[in-house]
């Protein structure tokens, strides 16, 4: 977006008519005119928007469209004990870049993320192809793989951590070698996952998708190239309907997006009408690093996603590991441990592909049997309303939880969840 476009967007979203969300967020009096920004300084003085701001306002008061004009809602998991956020969506635009990588003439197996199955069919139909998708059900991957084989699917689109879940079933159905396109969203693709995909799906082009439930004008970043093994594995550039900034998450100062600069990505996104929620200066919570000042092919600065800035949850197969949930479990074991910890997460090669492997470093109060502590924590640690971490281990979804003792200096800051 150009500076003129963001000026117009601010004027549009702070007018007396229409959605009142930003007027309230910016503290405008009822009779105040819309905000006019004249300089970058004016722009950077606008408050940053956070997920907490969105959670604080009911959907009906947040949406810029009547609910009848919304296509679907996307939930994002509550973190730190907060409730789920329901984000309105209209439809996706500027998605034709995908056609440079795949023809979409065969059915695609898709979860609801990054795009809903109906959206895939609409995309196919918009390009003169009889749309057909197979909805992927993470609870029932074998059945979906069978339907994918029957339908002749040749493409997959879902979370990165779904790949090891369905891969053995696609192999069993004899169609892994027919998969030509894999679109993965969610946590950053690890080297272990990439190697697994390359081995299991030798003909597949792997394309990263960087989205977020709160960002209607998805994706946040357009992929500069497929994942080929070159580092960084996933590389993105901005979309014409977006304005990206990088901030220092501690000082909230804007960081110049020059090569190797790091910080939290802040996004302004407005796809044009209809838009159920134009985003202005939204903190994505993701730390990014600028890779090139000017992407040779796309002109703007390119970046890679390093992980969550203040990671208080991590999505895993079948659920979410939440920082506050770990703290809750530790608080039930007060005679042995405190609730200070660091969780280091990685993927390790397993029998059926990469396996989520956590190491929990806990502050102990006295000499303890860390193996027993780990087993007790896993048995109580909920990753979904119906599953504990230990249940997931028993189902082969995750590696066993390992604990080790940890003695941080008094008052020292520690990262609670670290993705490696």
């Amino acid at each position, binding site marked *: 977006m150009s500076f003129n476009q963001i000026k117009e967007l601010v004027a549009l979203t702070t007018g007396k008519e229409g959605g009142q969300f930003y007027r309230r967020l910016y503290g405008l009096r009822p009779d105040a005119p819309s905000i006019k920004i004249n300089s970058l300084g004016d722009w950077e003085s606008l408050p940053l928007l956070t997920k907490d701001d969105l959670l604080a306002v*009911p*959907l*009906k008061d947040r949406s810029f469209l009547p*609910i*009848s*004009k*919304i*296509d*679907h*809602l996307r*939930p994002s998991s509550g973190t730190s004990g907060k*409730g*789920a956020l*329901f984000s*309105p969506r209209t439809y996706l635009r500027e998605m034709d870049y995908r056609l440079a990588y795949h023809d979409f003439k065969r*059915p695609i197996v898709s*979860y*609801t993320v990054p795009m*809903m*199955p*109906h959206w895939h*069919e609409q995309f196919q139909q918009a390009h003169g192809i*009889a*749309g*057909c*998708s*197979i*909805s*992927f*059900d*993470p*609870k*029932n991957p*074998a*059945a*979906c793989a*069978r*339907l994918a084989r*029957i*339908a*002749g699917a040749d493409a997959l689109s879902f979370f990165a951590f779904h790949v090891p879940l369905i891969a053995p079933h696609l192999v069993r159905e004899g169609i892994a070698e027919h998969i030509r396109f894999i679109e993965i969203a969610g946590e950053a693709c690890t080297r272990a996952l990439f190697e697994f995909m390359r081995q299991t799906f030798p003909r597949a082009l792997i394309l990263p998708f960087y989205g977020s439930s709160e960002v209607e004008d998805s994706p946040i970043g357009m992929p500069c190239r497929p994942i080929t093994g070159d580092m960084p594995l996933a590389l993105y550039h901005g979309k014409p309907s977006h304005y990206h900034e990088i901030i220092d998450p501690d000082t909230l100062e804007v960081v110049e997006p020059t090569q190797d600069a790091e910080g939290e990505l802040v996004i302004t996104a407005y796809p044009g009408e209809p838009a159920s929620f134009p985003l202005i200066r939204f903190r994505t919570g993701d730390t990014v690093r600028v890779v090139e000042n000017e992407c040779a092919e796309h002109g703007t600065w390119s970046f890679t996603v390093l992980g969550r800035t203040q990671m208080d949850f991590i999505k895993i197969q079948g659920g979410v590991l939440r920082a506050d949930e770990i703290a809750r479990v530790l608080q039930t074991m007060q005679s042995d441990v405190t609730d200070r910890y660091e969780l280091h997460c990685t993927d390790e090669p397993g029998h059926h592909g990469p396996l989520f492997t956590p190491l929990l470093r806990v502050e102990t109060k006295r000499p303890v049997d860390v193996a027993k502590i780990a087993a007790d924590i896993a048995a109580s640690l909920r990753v*979904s*309303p*119906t599953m504990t971490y230990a249940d997931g281990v028993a189902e082969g979804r995750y590696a066993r939880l390992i604990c080790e003792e940890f003695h941080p200096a008094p008052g020292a800051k520690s990262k609670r969840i670290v993705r490696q």
Partner: protein
Amino acid sequence: MDTLTEIQAIQDTLKSIRCRIIPTSFEADDSALSGFPLHPLSRWDSCAQALSELNPHGVMMRLPLFWQLEVLLWYASRSVRAPVFLNDPENMPVGAAALQLGGMDTVVTEQRDASTFADFVKKENGELPEKWIIVHRAQDRWDMPASLSGCKIAQEVHLFPGLPILSQCAVLMGERSDIPRFHITRGNRYEYDSKVFETASKDEIPSFRLNIPPITTSEVCSCGDSVYTQTI
């Protein structure tokens, strides 16, 4: 040739024809699970009809994703200008929150889930959503979920997920009997004597003659169609 043998015989040809695939079983671990072809332009008309009667603000689906009903439900919901929200059947807290905070007021679920979810929502939110679409599995007893008395309910019977064989008009939806009554879904044919349900053919999709559980006809509805109940 019985229903499943006839369908299994065409499995290898389905990838060559333009069709939408639905599973032939409600159970994901059914070893006989196959694909059943629907015309690519087929819609869930009975659901769209029910939604037009219910006039929803937002439609929440709690059916398993592998049933392949998301796309069909989305078309039905668009026809009444209502957004959809997919709720993992195992994640009832988010489902209850969507009803309370997300503007959803209509639940599409199956009979086996309805009472459990209704009890949870009542405890969590203090009240039930008013509008429900309940899918019965053909081989189950088609009982009205007791927890939903007082709600507006449209009920359907599916032979496979996405293949409704029986549905209700506005008159039957308004009945409050414990034993729901249905019509044969429009566009299909039922041979009462041979107990065979014949699907409509279109383009490359042939018609199928399917055996369905015993049903009894009693009278003609004021809408003009014959009324059927489950033979118990």
